[in-house]
Structures are given as C-alpha cells and as structure tokens.
C-alpha cells in the first residue's frame, strides 16, 4: 500500500474503512496511522460520507405485509422434474410409493423389447426376396449337366 493507492481507495470507497476492500484494509489502516498525508486525504473526503449518510429513506412499514400477501404463481417445471414428481410424488398414497418406481424399473425392459423387434435378427432373408431374386438363387443352386465355359 502506497499513498497513491490509498488515495485511489479514498476516491472510490470514501473515508470509512469498513467500505474499503477487505484485502487492502489492514495495509491502508497501517498507512493511515503512519502518514500525515494519508490522514489529510481521509479528512478531505470525510464530509462527503457524512453528507451521504444523511440521505433518509421511507420506513416501508407495510412492505412485508404486502409482499407476504402477494399471490405466488405456480412455477413451470421442467420435463424431468415433472416425470420425477409423477414417479415419486412426495405426498403420494401408499400405492404410489411402489408401483411407480416399479414402472420406472420396467422401462429398460420395454426399451429392449422395442429395439429387438426393430432389428429383425431372426427373420429369414429369403422371405423378403423378389421373384427375380428367388429365380436367380434357384438357378445358382441348380446342378448343371454341362460345365460352364
């Protein structure tokens, strides 16, 4: 902390050390205790802080009452929050406590079945051949009497 930085602090934050940045406060106070110039700078700025402190504000006596009577809107929930709340409602009846998690547990099984049906792993490829393709296959498998040249 030097006098130049001290002056910058006073110009920005005023003469009350409580408003100075915490990280620099101790060093600024040390300089203030040791330097007459720093004390003079502080004194020159103090009147503005005293003046600003006289800025009165209304009491806002009824404010809390008004705020607490204010109707609170329903919050829009994200899809994940809605699904989670449906699956595990906080205030559900007893039945909701087990069947919904069970339904959630079944989802991977349903998903697996669906994907398995889409892949058609066990379907006979010949079943989807056209007539021309079947004839070519028949010819290819036939036992020719003459060798091909």
């Amino acid at each position, binding site marked *: 902390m030097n006098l130049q930085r001290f002056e*910058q602090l006073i*110009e*920005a*934050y*005023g003469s*009350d050390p*409580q*408003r100075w*940045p*915490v990280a620099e406060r101790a060093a600024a106070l040390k300089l203030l205790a040791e330097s007459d110039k720093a004390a003079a700078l502080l004194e020159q*700025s103090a*009147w*503005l*802080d*005293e*003046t*600003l*402190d*006289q*800025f*009165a*504000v*209304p*009491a*806002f006596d009824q*404010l*809390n009452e*008004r*705020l*607490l009577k*204010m109707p*609170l*809107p329903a*919050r829009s929930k994200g899809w994940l929050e809605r699904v989670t709340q449906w699956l595990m409602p906080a205030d559900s009846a007893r039945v909701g406590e087990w069947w919904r998690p069970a339904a959630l547990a079944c989802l991977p099984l349903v998903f697996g079945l669906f994907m398995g049906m889409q892949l058609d792993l066990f379907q006979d490829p010949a079943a989807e051949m056209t007539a021309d393709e079947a004839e070519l296959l028949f010819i290819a498998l036939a036992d020719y009497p003459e060798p091909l040249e």
Partner: protein
Amino acid sequence: MHEISIGMSGSDRDIKPEASGSRRMLTDEQIMAAIAAGDRRIYADTVRQHSRAIAFYAWRMLGSQAEAEDVVQETFLRLWTQAARWQPDRAGISTWLHRVAHNLCIDHMRKDRSAVTDELDEDLEDHKTDPDEDLDMDMRQRRLQQAIAALPERQRSALILVHYQGLSNQAVAGIMDLSVDALESLLARARRTLKASLADLRVDSENKDTQAQPVCTNSRRQEKKA
C-alpha cells in the same frame, strides 16, 4: 450462512433486526433449495430478512416509493419462480437479490427517464418535528436526492450498492458485470461529481456547525456513536 428467523440480520446496514422467533441456521444453498421446492415458510423468512434492503436500494435508485415497491415485489416473485436457477458459486442470496433489483431498476429508468420524482419530500413529510431543523433537513434531503439522481445510472447504482447497501466491491462488480477496476473508476467519478454538486452543503454545515439528524438513514456513523 444466514440466520433464518422472524427477524433480520446481515450486512445491509439499513436493516434493523425485528423481534426474534424460532431460529435456525441455514446456508444460502439450503434456503434456495427449500424455496425451489416450494417451502413457503422459508420464502417468507427470506422476504422478511431482505425486503427492506432491496426496497431501500430501489428507492434510492428510482426516487419513488411506489416504483421501489413494484421492483421489490418483482424481485421476490423472481426469487420464488427462479430459485432453482440460483448458482451458489456465483453469489449469495443478498447479492443475487440485489442483482435482480439492479436489473429491474435499470429497466424502469430506461422505460421512464423521468422516474426520479419529488416523492422523497412526500415520503418524509410525516417525520417532521422542529420547523427550523426540518426546513434545513428538507433542503439537504432534496439536494442529496437531486445530486444522486443526476448521476449516470451505473455510477448511481455503484455508489448506492457500495455506500448504502454495504456490499463488497467483488459483489458489486458481479452485480454490475464489471471488473473491480471498472467499479472503482465508476465510484471515483460518482464521488467527484457529488463533491462538486454538494460542495455548498459542506460550507453550510461548517458555517452553522450543526448536524441535521437523519430520520431513517443508513447510519453507520450513528451506530458508531451509539
């Protein structure tokens, strides 16, 4: 860590604790998680704890009690609806609320450039006691109001957040999306402007050798005296 109770605490120097009820310590993260989950009791406690600080900020920014209350109402509606979006690593609840209020105030000012009104005088009418003292006080209040209202909106917000709301430079820089260096530059310009525009108040004060007492001020100095 915040003390949630039927009462208030924290760094906002304008706020005086109310009567205490049942108390328990919750972190900001726990509070916001509870509000996000729909806990109206925690929400109400949070409103009681922070509402006046936000109201004072909005009032100093806008100069109108009605508009300030609108900003506070919208700020706490957003607390209710957007608590789930709050990120604990970015800001505490107070700083988050100030950020919301700051953005709302800037929106208000841009919609209505004449937002700063003479309502201050009406708001303070009820507190008058001594006619001579009040005349001086009234004049000083009006001058202060005018001087702060005349600041560019970002300088005004920076000054109010640091001087009156008691937020740290890091928090204010975060609220205003600034670097700390840029914040210090804004603050220094604001204070230079105020020194020039309020210089006659200093002279008056020195000549009269009296100090007008604030009615309901941000009074670190008063606390020190106490």
